[in-house]
């Protein structure tokens, strides 16, 4: 694909994509090469050494295993939240922008309502109320359901600008109905934009999960990068100089989000069809 070739010419994209896909590969396939285990492999907070290259946690578990599992969870939440937020936002945005009139006004009101409600507070409240049922999926769902407003606004503006193009009139006299027009004639123009929005929503999802876990309202009985940090915090690892308890996970979170931002920025230049010409 010409698009891919162009993207590959940008160093930002190559670095960002390599980092991001690298972490995904590690999360998915590392267990094939490395024995991921939650059994005790050493002393409590043992320093990095043989058998536990990144040290152990307060229960003597191998940090590398924990990080791999944590990576999986965080990526899962990020993707889930990203997909939901982008899908909801895009659907509402495209439809409202195209239809205009009272439908647009109604959807705008809805969007504004959700913007006004601080999503993190909602996240905390819902998380806290689910004392026993806090799963990764639930957290991903909540994040997705509260952060779609940004995509909706952005997509709506684009959709609204597109509907006055003559090719929409032409599509109508070709006999295309509203759904066909939205899918064939508006969505493709927005796809690159929506994709970039998706990338940023994933990043936002990962960060939100880390944040909610760090205040102790994260998923129960699962490892995530945020949970690892929370455990480190609540076991006093920071004060005791147990750097391997919190630095690797912090680095991972930062690296993933950074990689996603790199991908997003590099795409902006390449994706715009007018710039491409």
């Amino acid at each position: 694909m010409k698009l891919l070739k162009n993207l590959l010419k940008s160093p930002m994209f190559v670095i960002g994509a390599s980092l991001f896909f690298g972490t995904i590969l590690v999360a998915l396939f590392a267990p094939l090469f490395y024995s991921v285990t939650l059994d005790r492999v050493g002393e409590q907070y043992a320093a990095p050494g043989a058998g536990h290259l990144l040290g152990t946690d307060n229960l003597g578990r191998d940090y590398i295993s924990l990080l791999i599992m944590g990576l999986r969870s965080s990526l899962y939440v990020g993707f889930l939240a990203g997909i939901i937020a982008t899908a909801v936002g895009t659907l509402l945005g495209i439809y409202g922008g195209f239809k205009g009139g009272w439908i647009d006004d109604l959807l705008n009101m809805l969007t504004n309502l959700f913007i006004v409600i601080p999503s993190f507070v909602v996240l905390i409240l819902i998380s806290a109320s689910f004392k026993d049922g806090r799963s990764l999926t639930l957290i991903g769902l909540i994040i997705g359901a509260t952060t779609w407003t940004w995509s909706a606004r952005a997509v709506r503006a684009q959709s609204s600008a597109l509907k006055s193009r003559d090719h929409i009139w032409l599509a109508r006299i070709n006999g295309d109905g509203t759904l066909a027009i939205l899918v064939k004639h508006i969505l493709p123009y927005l796809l690159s934009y929506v994709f970039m929005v998706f990338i940023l929503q994933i990043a936002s999802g990962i960060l939100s999960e880390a944040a909610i876990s760090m205040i102790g309202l994260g998923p129960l009985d699962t490892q995530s990068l945020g949970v690892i940090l929370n455990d480190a915090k609540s076991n006093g690892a920071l004060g005791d100089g147990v750097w391997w308890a919190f630095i690797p996970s912090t680095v991972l979170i930062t690296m993933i989000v950074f990689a996603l931002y790199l991908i997003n920025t590099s795409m902006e230049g390449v994706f715009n069809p007018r710039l491409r010409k």
Partner: protein
Amino acid sequence: MPSETPIFSARDVVRVFGSGKKLVRAVDGVSFDIADGEIVSIVGGSGCGKSVLAKIMLGLYKPTSGQFLYEGHEITDQRDHWNEVQAVFQDPFSCFNQFFTIRAQLKAAFHILKDKPSKSEIDDRVDAGLLAVNVAPKDIEGKYPFELSGGQMQRMLLARIFALRPKVLIADEPTSMVDACVRANILDYLMKLKVELSMTIVFVTHDIGLAYYVSDRLFIMHEGKIVDAGTPDDVILKPTSPVTVRLLDDIPEIHKEWIKR
């Protein structure tokens, strides 16, 4: 064989937009008949309402009041209407979807037809349409809209009409965004449509010179009303409305004085 019933028939058609203080009377009471096989031009400056009138003829807008008939009855079903009445628009670049090939979009036009022809017939008709505008089908094979110039794109809009063979064509400013050389081409194709396919053509433009050359009749529109109508020679040589006089004065002609300095 041209029929007796006028193709389009308008009686006191009004179309407004907005409400209250922001009310705009885009079309403010127009009445006319357009006969089968005629080329009629609707001429006027920007904001005179001609584009809105064109969209009413296309069935894209309904009149707010008054009666507008196609072949003697109101336009009730848009899809039926578009089987027989089609359009070309002003900006050739914004008329095509940049993500699909040109050929695919030409073929997509057939989607509107009730009696959808077979795949091979569609291909044949698209080829014929391209040849009618002097483009060899292989020249646009696999090409996307952004790979062609404005003039070529405008031809594609006409190729679509040659392929579809509607009864009526509404051409909304097809020449205002292309340069003089391409303009002459487009007019040729419009004449070809009338002569070879007996198409009724409504040509909307602000260029009275073009309208003069190509039309059987001219309507001059101003602020939503038709202020002058008749054959090109009537309207231009014996204008009855000051609007027409001003429009004629405003065109830079090489033999006439234009601006006093």
